[in-house]
């Protein structure tokens, strides 16, 4: 599988994401700098890493969402290429309009950095097909702006259409309805605040993130 990790100035989980993808798929992703205007030919998965792109200037993810490479990402997403945004990557995807809603400052104002309990809300997606719906997993979070907010109608639609992928099982950041990760309408774009790439090996303290990448590999290879 050909994959690409987008790298912005201030990204800091790009190498972790590269290792995770390479470990699971056996192929190293292309690392694509934000100034590029095209993705490598045949890119079958786009991953947008965590970090503090552009120093979180203006709003988290706001500047990255307007950088040159994002036009190519939006175009690819429109053609059905899977796009995975983790943490700052989730913020970038909402700012780019690929996912609804916004990620605001944590309700408790503190940076939250710890493993948290999640419920997998749906197994009906290319990202979660290796989990069962209702399964409880533990994946680390590390963010200051993870408080997911959208208007009530949008939240109802996300829930009604099975587009909430992950929900927190504990109080983390004040997110509306405990939302930790959502899918786009077509199901090929996932944004999530928790870091599955940090829960890949037993040495990480848990392996609950691994099946996300394994499921993706199967979906994309099929």
């Amino acid at each position, binding site marked *: 599988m050909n994959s690409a990790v987008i790298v912005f100035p201030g990204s800091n989980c790009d190498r972790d994401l590269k290792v995770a993808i390479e470990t699971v798929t056996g192929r190293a992703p292309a690392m694509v700098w934000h100034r590029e205007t095209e993705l490598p030919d045949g890119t079958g998965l786009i991953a947008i890493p965590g970090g503090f792109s552009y120093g979180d200037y*203006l709003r988290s993810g706001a500047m990255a969402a307007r950088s040159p490479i994002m036009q190519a990402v939006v175009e690819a997403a429109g053609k059905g290429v899977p796009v995975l945004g983790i943490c700052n990557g989730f913020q970038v995807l909402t*700012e780019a309009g690929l996912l*609804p*809603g*916004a990620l*605001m400052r944590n*309700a408790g*104002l503190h940076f939250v950095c710890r493993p948290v309990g999640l419920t997998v809300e749906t197994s009906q997606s290319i990202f979660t097909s290796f989990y069962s719906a209702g399964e409880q997993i533990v994946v680390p979070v590390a963010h200051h702006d993870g408080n997911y*907010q959208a208007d009530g109608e949008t939240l109802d639609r996300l829930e009604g259409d099975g587009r909430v992928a992950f929900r927190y099982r504990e109080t983390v950041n004040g997110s509306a309805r405990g939302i930790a990760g959502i899918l786009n309408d077509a199901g090929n774009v996932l944004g999530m605040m928790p870091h599955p790439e940090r829960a890949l090996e037993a040495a990480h303290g848990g392996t609950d993130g691994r099946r996300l990448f394994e499921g993706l590999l199967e979906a994309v290879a099929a």
Partner: protein
Amino acid sequence: MKARVFVTLKPGVLDPQGKAIHHALGALGFAGVNDVRAGKLIELDLADGTSDAEIEAMCRKLLANTVIENFRVERDSS
């Protein structure tokens, strides 16, 4: 020509920073503060003749996230 863009959270959107400021004001002994909302002021130095529509487009495309924020533009009359 200058313009000032005020970006504020929409009413009803939780403002944790405003809440923290409110709390700190209370801790300093300022008892009469009912609520605090924090926002941003962005000053633009613009080419003469920049239209209102262009400034509004800047706000919608970048300066404000209209999912959660409102914006208001003040232009210098000079």
